[in-house]
């Protein structure tokens, strides 16, 4: 089985990462009750003998050895110390390898140029080194997951710098990026600059990007919190009017981090962490229709630059409380296509699907998927050359505490709306040359970076938009080759 390395950059990236490792440990604790170090757990963790100064790797062998001590296949990068050192001191600290982290003290000042150009060239060797260390522990490294935000300086700047490094050093290994986009009322003034500058790097150097909007996460979390039963009349009132423990959203007591210390962003970050777990589940656990990570890009990316995938996860209510009665299975499939379940503020139903993956976990049959595809398809628009653009996966291991779950990944033209909004915000600043000097004074940063990035973003928007325009138009089919008889 293959392994993945998670690279978490900046405050946002590290916080998501923290939730991810907590939930991943909880999932394995639930599935792997015997404490055996097998191939599946090996895809995210290595087994080490912690009695040594530099914990030695215990080889997998036949996959039947006991877990001694787990180290996450993670690389932690931040240009401030706060978040990372808090994590290292916290209950999850032991799971991280202190040789796989890199910090500075002064931060990137919400400036992409500082992160990408200044710190990038300054720390190039060190970054290569920490990544190499994580990569060398893998015997078949398949995928890097890079987690960062788009609005700040460190995440967007160094995150995309690392992406370039990965492409140079590990051209064979897939690069998946989970990028958190700022909301319109973001408190960082320069976030539009940072996002657009980072977008160019994502477009050119990532294999696959999962864009996530902060605001969409906020809305989903609110929706879940409102849905807890205590607010309904006639139902038993729970003493804690918060989301129940043991749910996917809180991680709660069965996770390593106790819920009492929960921070405001944790619920939102849990959603993203779950996304990563669900996406990789079919590669990690058995199932009747396995989906390996390389199959995701193969099936969902028809053109090299159109690799932005909109994700949605259902059922959400189960995430808030496992004791709620499970909703009908078909409802789960319908919800996954509703706009309020998307991790971007978009409505994919109104736009054009280029391809769509349904990744199901738990107690669901092949025939359930076929039935739901037939049921949903009439209401969705698929591009004319991919009328049957469905990729399906069936993993038999359900998420902790849920009977089943569904993750959809859609390559849908609706992302052009999100990107256009960012472009508009960018242009508002750029027209007045506001704050530009903060960027240009960084060594290596030029005005051309701005124009190039803007152009790159424009071309992505145009590609998606022009495909969307073809929706409903009569299709001109190229005639097939004729054989002269």
């Amino acid at each position, binding site marked *: *089985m*293959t392994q993945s390395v998670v690279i978490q950059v900046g405050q946002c990236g590290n916080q998501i990462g923290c939730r991810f490792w907590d939930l991943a440990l909880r999932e394995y604790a639930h599935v792997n009750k015997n404490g055996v170090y097998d191939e599946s757990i090996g895809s995210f963790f290595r087994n080490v003998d912690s009695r040594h100064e530099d914990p030695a790797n215990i080889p997998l062998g036949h996959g039947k050895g006991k877990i001694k001590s787990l180290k996450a296949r993670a690389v932690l990068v931040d240009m401030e110390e706060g978040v990372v050192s808090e994590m290292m001191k916290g209950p999850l600290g032991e799971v991280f390898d202190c040789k796989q982290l890199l910090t500075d003290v002064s931060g990137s000042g919400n400036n992409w140029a500082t992160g990408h150009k200044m710190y990038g060239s300054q720390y190039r060797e060190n970054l290569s080194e920490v990544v190499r260390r994580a990569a060398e522990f893998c*015997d*078949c490294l*398949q995928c890097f997951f890079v987690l960062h935000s788009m609005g700040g300086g460190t995440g967007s700047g160094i995150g995309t710098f690392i992406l370039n490094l990965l492409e140079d050093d590990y051209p064979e290994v897939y690069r998946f990026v989970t990028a958190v986009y700022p909301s319109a009322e973001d408190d960082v003034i320069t976030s539009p600059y940072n996002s657009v500058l980072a977008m160019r790097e994502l477009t050119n150097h990532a294999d696959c990007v999962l864009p996530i909007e902060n605001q969409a996460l906020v809305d989903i979390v609110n929706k879940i919190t409102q849905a807890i039963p205590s607010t309904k009349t006639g139902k038993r009132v729970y003493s804690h009017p918060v989301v129940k423990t043991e749910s996917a959203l809180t991680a709660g007591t069965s996770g390593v981090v106790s819920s009492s210390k929960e921070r405001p962003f944790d619920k939102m970050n849990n959603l993203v962490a779950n996304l990563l777990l669900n996406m990789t589940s079919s590669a990690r656990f*058995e199932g*009747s*229709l*396995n989906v*390996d*990570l*390389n*199959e995701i*890009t*193969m*099936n*969902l*990316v*028809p*053109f*090299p630059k159109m690799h932005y995938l909109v994700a949605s996860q259902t059922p959400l209510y189960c995430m808030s409380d496992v004791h709620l009665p499970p909703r009908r299975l078909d409802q789960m499939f319908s919800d996954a296509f509703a706009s309020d379940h998307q991790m971007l503020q978009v409505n994919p139903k109104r736009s054009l699907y*280029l*391809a769509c993956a349904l990744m199901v976990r738990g107690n669901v*049959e*092949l*025939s359930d998927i*076929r039935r739901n*595809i037939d049921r949903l398809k009439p209401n969705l628009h698929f591009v*004319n*050359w*991919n*009328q*049957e*653009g*469905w*990729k*399906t996966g069936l993993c038999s291991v359900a998420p902790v505490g849920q009977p089943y779950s569904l993750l959809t990944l859609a390559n849908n033209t609706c992302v052009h709306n999100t990107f256009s909004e960012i472009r508009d915000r960018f242009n508002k600043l750029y027209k007045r040359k506001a704050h530009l000097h903060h960027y240009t004074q960084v060594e290596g940063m030029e005005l051309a970076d701005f124009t190039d990035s803007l152009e790159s973003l424009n071309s992505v928007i145009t590609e998606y938009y022009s495909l969307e325009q073809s929706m409903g138009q009569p299709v001109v*089919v*190229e005639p*097939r*080759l*004729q*054989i002269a*008889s």
Partner: protein
Amino acid sequence: MSVITLQLGQCGNQVGEQTFSTLIDDIYSKSTGVTSKENQDYKDSSLETFFTQSENGGRDGLQSLPKARAVLVDMETKAIAQTLQQARKSGKWSYHDKQWYSQKRGSGNNWAYGYCVHGPKSKEDIMNLVRKEGEKCERVGGFLSFLSLAGGTGSGVGAFVTQSLRDEFPHSFIMNQVVWPYSTGEIIVQNYNAILTLSHLYDTADAIVVMENDSLHKICAQLLNIKNISFRDINKVIAHKLTSVLQPSLDDLKYLLFFLIISGYMLERLVPHPQHKLLTVKNIPQMSDIAREFSVYQWPGLMKSLRQMLIADAPMEEGINWEVKPATRTSSGHTCFNKSLSTMLFLRGKDSSTIDASMFSDPNIYTSWMSAELASCVSRQPRMFCDYDKAAALVSNSCAGVKPLNCIMQKAWNMFSSRAYVHQYLKHGLSEEDFLDSFVSLEKVIAGYNNL
């Protein structure tokens, strides 16, 4: 003489395992309908062809289990581990130790990755396994390989391995059994993968036996009454069809116990022209075990249905269109029945040696340039098959294989017109010309069949 089986990719391994199970079940089935001497001959020949048996028996003095003459190939470990375990669990047969090859990373649904990267890299190891298996045979008649058209490993590595086999064993027959994916698929790029595989197999294999998941699904639902159909059920149907062809039978002309398949004789008869290699298997009767106990059927009825299944191209005996007649033509003068190039009929069970099969040598159902005597061939076996007291199977080289091919070509061409997903293939060393070459060669195949 023996046949070596190659199981390629997840689907190939599952189907291969199921086929060996069905062969073994039939070999050891209790109801034979023949004398024990005849039955022993049948058993011995079948075991000799598809399995090896150690002569001095197992360590505990008992006869050791037959071991399949097979090589298992997948680029991922999960499917092979499962296959080996299934076989071991059966308690009736097993695979040879270390006759499998796997890598850590799958082909990711990418034909080019399988063909251009995994194929060359694993060629030597796989061919060594094949040679090792060959050394266990007194004489190798040929190769039978199982693969699906949709994925990356079975199709990509499979096409490459078939080519290597052809280079190394130029005189052995190679028959590929391919599984046609569901038309609304589980893989988006399956149409590309399918045309690339087929066009390559067409150059190297002697025959391609086509099984469609869609019709197999129907057989499971309607004839076998299965509610929640799994891949295992579908594979069982495939295995049943193949086994009914592969098991020993007697040829009409020579009337000797004669392995049609292993001498390559079957393929010589069935594939008279290199432009026509697509074979389909139709068989009758098929029913669930419970229904079988309460069913009575007679030879004339079976023969009549089977013939109509051929003419009307029906996948099963239920819902055959009886209106189609060989002579009928549309107003434009085209024939509207399924015209054949050649057929081979297998009759098994009670009274099979006396049945009149002349309705299959009717020149009207064949293309004009084949003489009906050469086009049709009957082979018989009085021993009961898989507990059916009468069973018939028909392998045909006919237009039936072209219909799904045409459909896949259309979809693949639509996608190719906009060059969607093509970059994923170019990344691993394929070129747009390679795609075009595949399109051209398959358009030729389609045209060839349409001109019959």
